């Protein structure tokens, strides 16, 4: 048992934090108000090497372990970088590029990973459909083999980065009768005839990520773009879980730390009834609960991340616990932060307002809290 980060990991976290605070966070308020993806922020993330963090150097990455990737996400959230930009990063690096890196052929890796790692190309992953959310195995997008090509038909929704993406990792079924066992993954490039993306959705939070539907109409994909072989898609979708439930959650942890710091400063400065509001136990209670949440969520996230780094089998209960706790309680804590700020917390110029909207996603994206409880309870009842 050892809960410590290495000196290298700590140094990296501090460097990313300072960079995020000084270079990126100042851009976020305006980008969030516009509700648009920011190429300026994207370039900053790329310049720091963050978009290719987990990939080996020969593929243009930094060779970071999962714990380090989580530390980067935490540090950026802590620095005040908005949830949307970090979601765009997560979907790009962990959902798209990581899947190509883990399941792609040598050719596929060489072709896609370096350009994704540098940020020249933007990546996305398409799993969810209008009629297949938590029940992803019921997807209706089909792929039919025709000579040396697969023809895709169907649609995807809530696809982060889709409106900007150059590379789409897409799941479709080649045999509906086989249910999840027929699901197959493909790499589809922007500009492929029959591939269309919808208008970006207007979202409650994480506004700086661009999210839309994706449509396939007789979209022909060459067979060399098959990812992980026929019927290998479900395995790919499931194997992303440890990335999903550690690296994609870590920015939310960082945002909670940021929120606690904002509240800590405000509670010292703000006076009512002739004393700083920190003197009121109702305020103290919220501060304490935020701190406890941060410590518990931190343990849950880095337990998932370090087990992957240590080559241990992912414990699905640990991954689900992390997701449900960070999602549900993280949002409660973001709400308490708004409460400490009172009327100011309701104003868009205060980052706790943005944190509150952004935090709502953690209990929804990548498996809802309900699904997490379903996973945990089913294993308990086995």
């Amino acid at each position, binding site marked *: *048992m050892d*809960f*410590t980060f290495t000196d290298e990991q700590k140094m990296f976290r501090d460097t990313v934090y300072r960079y995020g605070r000084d270079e990126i966070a100042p851009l976020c308020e305006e980008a969030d108000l516009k509700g648009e993806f920011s190429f300026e922020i994207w370039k900053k993330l790329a310049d720091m090497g963050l978009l290719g963090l987990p990939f080996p150097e020969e593929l243009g990455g930094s060779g970071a372990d999962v714990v380090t990737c989580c530390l980067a996400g935490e540090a950026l959230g802590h620095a005040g970088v908005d949830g949307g930009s970090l979601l765009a990063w997560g979907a790009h690096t962990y959902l798209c590029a990581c899947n190509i890196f883990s399941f792609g052929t040598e050719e596929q890796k060489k072709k896609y990973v370096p350009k994704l790692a540098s940020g020249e190309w933007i990546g996305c992953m398409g799993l969810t459909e209008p009629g297949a959310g938590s029940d992803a195995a019921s997807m209706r997008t089909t792929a039919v083999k025709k000579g040396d090509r697969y023809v895709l038909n169907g649609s995807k929704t809530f696809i982060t980065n889709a409106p900007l993406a150059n590379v789409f990792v897409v799941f479709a079924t080649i045999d509906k009768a086989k249910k999840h066992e027929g699901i197959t993954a493909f790499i589809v490039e922007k500009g492929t005839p029959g591939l269309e993306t919808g208008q970006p959705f207007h979202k409650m939070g994480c506004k700086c990520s661009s999210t839309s539907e994706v449509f396939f109409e007789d979209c022909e994909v060459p067979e060399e773009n098959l990812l992980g072989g026929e019927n290998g898609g479900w395995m790919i979708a499931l194997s992303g879980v440890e990335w999903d439930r550690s690296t994609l959650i870590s920015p939310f942890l960082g945002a909670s730390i940021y929120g606690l710091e904002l509240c800590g400063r405000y509670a*010292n400065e703000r006076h009512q009834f002739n004393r700083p509001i920190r003197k009121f136990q109702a305020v103290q209670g919220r501060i304490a609960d935020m701190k406890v949440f941060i410590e*518990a969520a931190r343990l849950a996230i880095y337990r998932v991340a370090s087990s992957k*780094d240590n080559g241990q089998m992912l414990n699905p209960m640990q991954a689900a616990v992390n997701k449900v706790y960070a999602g549900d309680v993280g949002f409660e804590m973001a709400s308490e932060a708004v409460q400490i700020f009172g009327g100011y917390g309701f104003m868009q110029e205060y980052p706790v307002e943005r944190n509150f909207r952004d935090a709502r996603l953690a209990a929804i994206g990548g498996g809802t809290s309900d699904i997490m409880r379903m996973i945990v309870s089913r294993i308990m009842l086995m």
Partner: protein
Amino acid sequence: MNYEFTEEQKKLQQDVAAFCIKEIAPEAQKLDEGPREEVCKLMERNLKKLGKAGFLGAGLEGAAIDLIDCYIAGEEITKACASTYISARSSVFMCGGILKLFGTPEQMKRFLPAIMKAEMIGALAYTEAEAGSDIASVSTTARKDGDVWVLNGVKDVVANAIIADVLLVLARMEKGAGSEDGMSLFIVEKGARGLDINDSLETMGLRGVPVSVVKLENCEAKEIVGGEPGKGYEQLERILKMGTVGIVSFCVGVGTSCMEKATQHAKAKKSSGKPIGLYQGVGFKLADMFTYNDLGRMLGLRAAWAMNEGENDADILGSCAKLFAGESATKIANLAMQVFAGHGYIKGTDIERLYRDARFGEICEGPSEIQRTIIANNELDKFM
């Protein structure tokens, strides 16, 4: 970074668990229900069994206290019988721990090995009617009379007092007693003149733990822990900070029992032909029990690790863990009761007992309100 137990830690966990299931768990209900005198005898026997098996002093054998071992043993003993753990902890960790940390070599030699084998039972008497979380307002006094100190005052809710061979008593030093107005922990042995232990307190839960009011009327004490007067407050504070780890192990132990029993029930009990656990109303309660219990354990072990390693924020992590696990234990016991419904409301059932036992975690040794104040002020001071 690695969250797994070492092989030695795993072995300790397995050994304590196997022993306690066989030797301790069967007595849990008797300890809850039995008449006072029988309960005391049974508890002494339980402590002796644990002592003989070598598990009572887990974590205290080495040169320094190993709080991870303390945690591991604590959770397993609690799973078998919550009362037994709290009684064991009061003796070995609270009383023995103070002696280990601050006692003179002679005091350690005289008491510690005996306490770890339960040849002697210890108690720690500090709370008073008007001095709970606010220890500084203790009013029990100590005055010097020749070679000895003479104690006067009343200590409230003292665990183990009636079965104790040695009590550590916190008292304020009177003029001329050395370290004026400071506090000291006095070693008072069973049968000391002026020591009056009234065994009249009936508790809601943890009924196997004898809890008493201790009256000191010109009670003679020959020794101070460590020999130097005026250190009592700091010594007590230290053991209470480290003690958060044990309370977390208690909370998680109770939580685990609740969760395991509720899970078994949800598998076996059917409604409209299907196990009730398959209904989300029940299944999701099980999931929440698991989540809060699991995170409570991680926080407890994290705090234990931090204290072992001497990390700067170790005490705050202890407070976070105690706050979280204390409130979680109440929540989990409540959910378990709900899963059992009427079947858990019956006297003599495990859930009925655990529900009462669980409530202790949130109120003992710095209730949740105090932990929140400590944690919040620590955070808020960073931004002054």
